[in-house]
């Protein structure tokens, strides 16, 4: 096979058994890799009724046909599993170096099953895989583990969990290369439940490219496009994602104090502009990425991180800044940077962690929870996160996310989540399409499933009215499908700001020799989306779960440019089901499944 390595590694930790077998070519053609391949393998491996933290759940790490080819941002990979936070199908993806390195060991995917009797880590080299004792790193934090296991940027890469994952916090992330995260939906808890501390990879096999000459042309074109786009050549390198905060706040769509307001009066203090001015050390990039959106920042309290001589830490991204900032009413950027660094070291999803803290603050202020947490208490971020990672005191209650917390204290409506996954930093009352996106996202509220920010705020490719309801479903569906396709290739979504899907399709054809038109690539995305939907339906989810917290449907925004708006989900959802070829209850129709070659499921 070209592009694909053509092999799957399958490790059963209960039995200590290591197998490998060829990747089925038909599956590869239909689902590509990454998220798509992960979802397809998960469909067979984990059926309904399996508890996410039991040995019967699996972790599937998957790369795609473009991974490690050297194509721009071909560094990414994903993990798929049944989410312990939501109970839905889950995939999370990450950049850095690990994905590229894993592919170079000669595998497209790794399936981890069972539960090791004692803590272990897996080491994969060209020659094969080994299961090794991890007693010496169990209990260690992410940076220490990464270092101890020999992280060496281009040669040997470490993926691991921190204490949060070991303690099976349902919002625990898996971390790779020390600072990058597979964050959302709690994959770290699944890894912890398997007694698996880390996976170390060291490979030398570059994937084969079929049509070298055409591939070189595609590289050349992508380089040109990325250089010409002001987004990928200036905006991202200069400010990263953090610069979004001011504009989202300005239009009245920055959720503040657990979504009670939609503008944060102190936004300027935590903005990307302030970050650049006060705390930025430099920017950094993942493997084979000419964009380099990653921030490295530093405060007085942060030292000894992995990032080298400057002693900074990666981040914070916009989402993180929002989660610990506006969502918690905190205007102290140094405290936010520190919270981000702690989360990365404990192995926690920053969006869920910040949002859960915000939820606890509202519960406390409403007199439902007895704690010191209050909006604006920057000083409590760090200690609370430490307690959360260790499941200590109040931390034990926060460790399983906002929905479980809010339910316990009798106010589930205060959890700002969809299907149990905390919503990211965009208020769906000021961005109608984003609300539909959150409500229908298969892994719960998510901004990486086809972000509407481009169309509704940034005018990419063209501004559409953010309050318009009619016709929104078309855009949401197109972007959901496109993002599922991109997550299956796998390349970084930011490449897509300069390079259109058309280029990805042609690159894919040149690399693999399998012909994909642009339409075929988007169709892969649609197939993946429908398969994920089927998975959730099999788990017992229904159209009733395609909703938003009542606050966003019933409490109009009280002030600012989005004043008076709630999210008009219902008409959008109806239109969405129809346009997807699903019935009124959101079940894909037979004809749609046949068309997508999913009929056999």
């Amino acid at each position, binding site marked *: 096979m070209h592009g694909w390595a053509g092999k799957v590694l399958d490790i059963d930790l209960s039995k200590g058994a290591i197998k490998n077998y060829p990747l089925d070519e038909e599956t590869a053609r239909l689902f590509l890799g990454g998220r798509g391949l992960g979802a397809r393998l998960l469909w067979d491996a984990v059926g309904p009724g399996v508890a996410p933290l039991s040995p019967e759940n699996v972790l599937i790490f998957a790369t795609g046909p473009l991974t490690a080819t050297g194509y721009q941002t071909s560094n990414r990979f994903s993990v798929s599993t049944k989410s312990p936070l939501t109970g839905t199908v889950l995939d999370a993806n990450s950049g850095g170096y690990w994905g590229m390195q894993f592919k170079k060991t000669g595998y497209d995917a790794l399936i981890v099953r069972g539960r090791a009797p004692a803590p272990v880590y897996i080491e994969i080299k060209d020659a094969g895989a080994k299961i090794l004792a991890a007693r010496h790193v169990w209990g260690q934090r992410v940076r220490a583990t990464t270092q101890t296991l020999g992280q060496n940027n281009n040669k040997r890469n470490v993926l691991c969990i921190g204490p949060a994952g070991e303690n099976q916090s349902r919002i625990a992330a898996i971390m790779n290369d020390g600072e990058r995260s597979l964050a959302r939906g709690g994959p770290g808890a699944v890894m912890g439940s398997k007694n698996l501390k880390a996976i170390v990879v060291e490979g030398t096999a570059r994937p084969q490219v079929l049509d070298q000459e055409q591939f070189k042309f595609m590289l050349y074109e992508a380089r040109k496009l990325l250089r010409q786009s002001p*987004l990928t050549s200036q905006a991202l390198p200069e400010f990263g994602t953090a610069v979004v905060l001011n504009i989202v706040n*300005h239009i009245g769509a920055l959720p503040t104090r657990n979504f009670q307001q939609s503008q944060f009066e102190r936004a300027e203090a935590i903005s990307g502009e302030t970050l650049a001015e006060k705390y930025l050390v430099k920017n950094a990039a993942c493997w084979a990425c000419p964009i380099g959106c990653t921030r490295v920042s530093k405060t007085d309290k942060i030292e000894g991180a992995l990032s080298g001589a400057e002693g900074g830490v990666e981040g914070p991204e916009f989402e993180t800044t929002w989660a610990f900032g506006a969502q918690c009413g905190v205007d102290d950027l140094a405290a936010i940077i520190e919270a981000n660094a702690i989360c990365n070291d404990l192995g926690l999803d920053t969006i869920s962690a910040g949002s859960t803290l915000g939820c606890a603050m509202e519960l406390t202020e409403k007199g439902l929870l007895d704690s010191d947490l209050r909006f604006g208490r920057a000083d409590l971020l760090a200690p609370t996160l430490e307690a959360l990672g260790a499941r200590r005191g109040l931390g034990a209650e926060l460790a399983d996310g906002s929905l479980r917390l809010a339910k316990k204290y009798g106010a589930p409506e205060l959890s700002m989540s969809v299907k149990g996954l905390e919503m990211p930093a965009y208020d769906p009352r000021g961005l109608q399409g984003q609300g539909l996106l959150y409500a229908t996202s298969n892994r719960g509220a998510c901004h990486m499933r086809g972000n509407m920010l481009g169309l509704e705020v940034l005018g990419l490719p063209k501004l559409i009215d953010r309050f318009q309801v009619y016709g929104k479903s078309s855009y949401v569906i197109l972007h959901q499908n496109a993002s599922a396709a991109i997550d299956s290739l796998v390349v970084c979504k930011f490449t897509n700001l300069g390079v259109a899907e058309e280029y990805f399709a042609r690159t894919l054809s040149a690399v693999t020799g399998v012909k994909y038109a642009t339409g075929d690539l988007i169709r892969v995305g649609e197939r993946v989306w429908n398969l994920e939907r089927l998975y959730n339906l099999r788990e017992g989810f229904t159209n009733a779960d395609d909703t938003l917290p009542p606050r966003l449907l019933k409490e109009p925004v009280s002030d600012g440019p989005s004043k008076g708006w709630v999210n008009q989900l219902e008409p959008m959802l109806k239109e969405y089901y129809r346009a997807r070829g699903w019935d009124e209850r959101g079940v894909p129709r037979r004809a749609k499944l046949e068309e997508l070659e999913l009929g056999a499921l």
Partner: protein
Amino acid sequence: MATVRLFGGLRRRARDPKISVDGVTARDVLASLCRDNPGLHAVIWDGARVRDHVRGLIGGQAIELGRGLATRVTADDEIAIFPPIGSGGNTT
């Protein structure tokens, strides 16, 4: 005098992130802004058009979805100008 607020990389090119500017329409305001801060001209204008991906908002609403550069501006209006912005988050 309306108030113009600048964001991102635009700030480096102007004397202040918050500037009072004269003008009856959005076009006037942008023109006199660039007259006073010549460094902004090249990043905001592309000939007689505003550059792609440069966003202007009055009171939080996109200028281009209203009356465009012909939009009337009053003294209480706050006009925000954003340079090109790459969207979304990336850790997931």
